[in-house]
């Protein structure tokens, strides 16, 4: 009843195009942000951090990235796993080559490297679309994973072929390495996520975002009315890969600490992130968050129910998890192709007009 559009008048265009045009949304956002930054860090333990919070924050960044490319610009990519790997290995190489560099800068640089690689693999998108492009992005996935597996330079010739993250700290707190505390790692990832979500929102509401959506909805018309397809598509690939690269760097350095490329960044990662944006909502910033949260929580929930509660073996839980996720994808594509975000939007629309819908 208090969620209202009426009375919240906009008198300038500036007000009308702000991040959260609705007053209540704005307050809701401030409250969530305050809780996330000021309350949660005091209550989380190691289990929650590594099982739920860190994966959620990191996958949310990756999902934002893929959503920019697939949801906003309409270019389906199955190469997310490969780009995550670029972020991770970029991060590792920079960390070990420049030990004094601030970890925050390292993560952003990894993003930039991934952006460059992403643009390279985005070039075919100028000629091909749809699932042709999806197949072409598989090339990125398989080639990049092979590259990091086979070229010793990328893992500094370590005997195991793994890369592991050295300790780096900011303001005296360890961010990476075995001594990093859960709240610190959480806050580091949270800060990056909030920053990047804000950037994503800015990019998608302005000229660039409109040119992406125009390409998605009708590429030929978009070009004819003056949208440069080369620049739009490549910028979508670049921005998307930047986000995914940052996610990959965090995945390696803050979350796992040590990774082996084939295991951590296989094709299943590509699918997982794609599923997140399908379930959350294609072309929705909020949807990227919801989708990431959903697909991080579902396995945890299933595992808790089946393994800890019912006492079933883990492999059965994993098989059922696959079935549930695959089934959910089909259900969502059939029932609500715009994902959970759309359900949320519809609920909000209803509520805005309640109790007089006409």
């Amino acid at each position, binding site marked *: 009843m208090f969620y209202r559009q009426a009375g919240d008048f906009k008198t300038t265009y500036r007000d009308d195009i702000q991040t959260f045009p609705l007053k209540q949304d704005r307050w809701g956002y401030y409250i969530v942000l305050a809780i996330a930054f000021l309350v949660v860090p005091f209550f989380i333990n190691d289990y929650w951090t590594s099982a739920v919070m860190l994966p959620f924050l990191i996958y949310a960044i990756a999902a934002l990235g893929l959503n920019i490319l697939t949801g906003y610009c309409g270019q389906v990519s199955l190469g997310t796993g490969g780009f995550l790997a670029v972020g991770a290995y970029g991060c590792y190489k920079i960390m070990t080559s420049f030990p004094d560099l601030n970890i925050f800068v390292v993560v952003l640089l990894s993003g930039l490297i991934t952006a460059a690689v992403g643009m390279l693999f985005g070039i075919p998108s100028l000629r091909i679309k749809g699932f042709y492009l999806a197949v072409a992005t598989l090339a990125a996935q398989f080639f990049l994973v092979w590259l990091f597996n086979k070229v010793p330079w990328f893992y500094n010739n370590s005997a195991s072929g793994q890369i592991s993250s050295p300790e780096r700290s900011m303001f005296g707190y360890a961010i990476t390495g075995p001594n990093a505390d859960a709240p610190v790692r959480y806050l580091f990832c949270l800060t990056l996520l909030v920053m990047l979500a804000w950037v994503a929102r800015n990019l998608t509401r302005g*000229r660039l975002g409109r040119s992406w*959506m125009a390409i998605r909805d*009708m590429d030929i018309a978009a070009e004819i009315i003056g949208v440069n*397809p080369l620049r739009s598509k490549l910028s979508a690939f670049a921005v998307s890969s930047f986000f995914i690269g940052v996610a990959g760097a965090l995945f390696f350095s803050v979350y796992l600490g040590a990774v082996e490329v084939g295991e951590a960044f296989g094709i299943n990662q590509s699918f997982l992130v794609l599923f997140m944006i399908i379930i959350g909502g294609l072309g929705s910033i909020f949807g990227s968050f919801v989708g990431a949260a959903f697909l991080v929580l579902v396995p945890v929930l299933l595992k808790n129910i089946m393994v800890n509660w019912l006492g079933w073996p883990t492999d059965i839980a994993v098989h059922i998890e696959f079935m549930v996720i695959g089934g959910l994808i089909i259900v969502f594509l059939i029932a609500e192709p715009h994902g959970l975000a759309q359900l949320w939007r519809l609920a909000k629309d209803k509520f805005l007009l309640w109790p007089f819908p006409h």
Partner: protein
Amino acid sequence: MNIGSKMASNIQPGEELLRIENISLSFGGVKALTEVSFDIKRGEVRAIIGPNGAGKSSMLNVINGFYHPQVGEVWYCGQKRKGLKPFQIAHQGIARTFQNIALFKGMSTLDNIMTGRSTHMRANMLSQAIWRGAAEKEEIKNRRFVEEIIDFLEIQSIRKTPVGRLPYGLQKRVELGRALAAEPVLLLLDEPMAGMNVEEKEDMSRFILDVQSEFGTTIAIIEHDMGVVMDISDRLVVLDYGKKIGDGTPEEIRNNQAVIDAYLGVPHE
């Protein structure tokens, strides 16, 4: 001021804005256009008419650079065009609407029209990413212009509605708005009144004439309704089987034997 208005700044009304010279276009073995030549003068409404499959839409596609003719030249603002991509031509001030509505279905009316404005926006990616400063200022400035178009076309109430949900007539109007947002020098309209009832056609005709008089825009229009075409256009080109069979004022076209034959279906020699 963008490239388009700069290019056209020394062309006075009544002078030649665009010249099509000896254009031939074919797809594989199928000839779409054969040796077509005509010109468009600044400030006029120039109609392209002809029976179905006469090559009218192909002609527009040649003008805005989507099709590249095998033979012939396009002269625009006194310059010969060579090897330009469609979006570059849009930046030179040529905007258009489409026969089958080609709106961006997932976007709101406002966003669609704002996209049409992109030839006037140039804030870089970094400033768009942080939004403060240049990008926001540019956004607001162009939003103001777009709101003028929304007022002009009387579509204020559907500003934030996704265009996929709008009825046909309104979609056509939004599409016109998107083309107008570019402040084009030359506006190409591909059957803007197809499928409309009399009332909607009257509205659309009024908008087209208003655009011509208020913004001084040159207009090239394809339309099947002869009544409307003869009323609103200054000069007409008639195409049949990809060839030009008539060119002149409505009065001349009405009395042109070849045109009458084409429309009444005299068998080809």
